């Protein structure tokens, strides 16, 4: 009788262990680190027009009056946009969405303007993120 109960308990043991471990394993595997990290750039290195910062996938649009920072990913499917200086346009190499130099959507399957990224200027440095 006792043996039988013990055997049944032993049979259930692997399932119990698996059940208990499911939550921590799930939490571990599905952990996602926040990719948005702050970084800074010297304003000296940013020329007028469009500057692409490849490492952070951003475009900086600088004129004598203003600065804007855009996410370099297309707002449609996330491909990295190309900037064409002659046309003053961003064009997506995947599905051909087009955006103006200041980030407004012109045409293509993208439904939104480019995502702007917040920044601060302090001591001739651009703090992005």
């Amino acid at each position, binding site marked *: 009788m006792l043996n039988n109960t013990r055997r049944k308990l032993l049979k259930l043991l692997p399932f119990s262990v698996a059940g208990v471990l499911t939550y921590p394993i799930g939490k571990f*595997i*599905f*952990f*996602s*680190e*926040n*990719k948005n990290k702050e970084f800074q750039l010297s304003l000296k290195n940013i020329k007028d027009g469009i500057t692409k910062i*490849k490492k952070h996938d951003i475009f900086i649009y600088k004129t004598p009056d203003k600065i804007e920072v855009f996410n370099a*990913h297309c707002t*449609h*499917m*996330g*491909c*990295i946009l*190309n900037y064409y200086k002659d046309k003053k346009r961003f*064009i997506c*190499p*995947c*599905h*051909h969405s087009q955006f103006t130099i200041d980030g407004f959507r012109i045409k293509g*399957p993208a*439904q939104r303007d480019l995502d702007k990224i917040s920044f601060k200027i302090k001591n001739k440095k651009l703090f992005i993120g």
Partner: protein
Amino acid sequence: MSRTVSLITLGLFFVSLLSGFVIIFAYHPSDAFTSVQKIEFLIPFGLFFRKLHYFSSEAFTFFLLLHIFLELSKKKIYINATSWNYSVLSFALVIVLMFSGFVLKADLSANAAAQVAYSLIKDTPLLKNLLPLFQDSSIFYYKFFIWHILFLPLILGYAIYKHTKTLHVEAVYFSIAIGLSLLISMLFSMPKDIILSSKAKQLSSPWFFEGAENLLLKSFSALSINLILITPFILLVAYFYIKPKNIARILLFSWLLAYSYISVFLS
């Protein structure tokens, strides 16, 4: 004919697996593109093994499709439901493996394909919860690499075993598979890798996702595209249970025809 095709398919699976196993030793997810270029241009026989892996995988997919076509054209199904369902799972896993392999070449088109796949998953309810399984914040290709070299081949091997009841390939069929892969590798060249700093006007996706890409051009939603992509697998599972097989055949053929048309003519 049907048995020969299925055994060559299994043989090609092993050729793809073994050639991929060789490449693992020189592939570094932290510097993926450079390592792929080193494999191709620097390491002795690197190009040979990369081409062998690429073309054996492509041939494996082609023979798998042929195997499915031949089985569907039979009047009766000669396997049980479990075996059938594992075969559909194998087919789905092969497509995922092919896609992860495309991403691991780590050039500009691979990068874009991964971004599009992320967006398709992110914008689809329920599926978006799976995103951390592929996404990594520090090394972009690391999780694709782990899935491609470890989990997916293991699950695929298990699914094939449950489908065929064996993983044994007779020497003659393995030789045919190797011979075929070598022949195709010698006759054809691989698509060129696009360097990351280049400004490509048009980036292409793997051939089996061309239809999905063209639907994205026409502003189809991520959910609808995922439903379109999953339809043949649902139809294949249903095929076992639907009694007048012709109805299921017509549905599958219609999907194939429509998707082929979208892939070729809708761009």
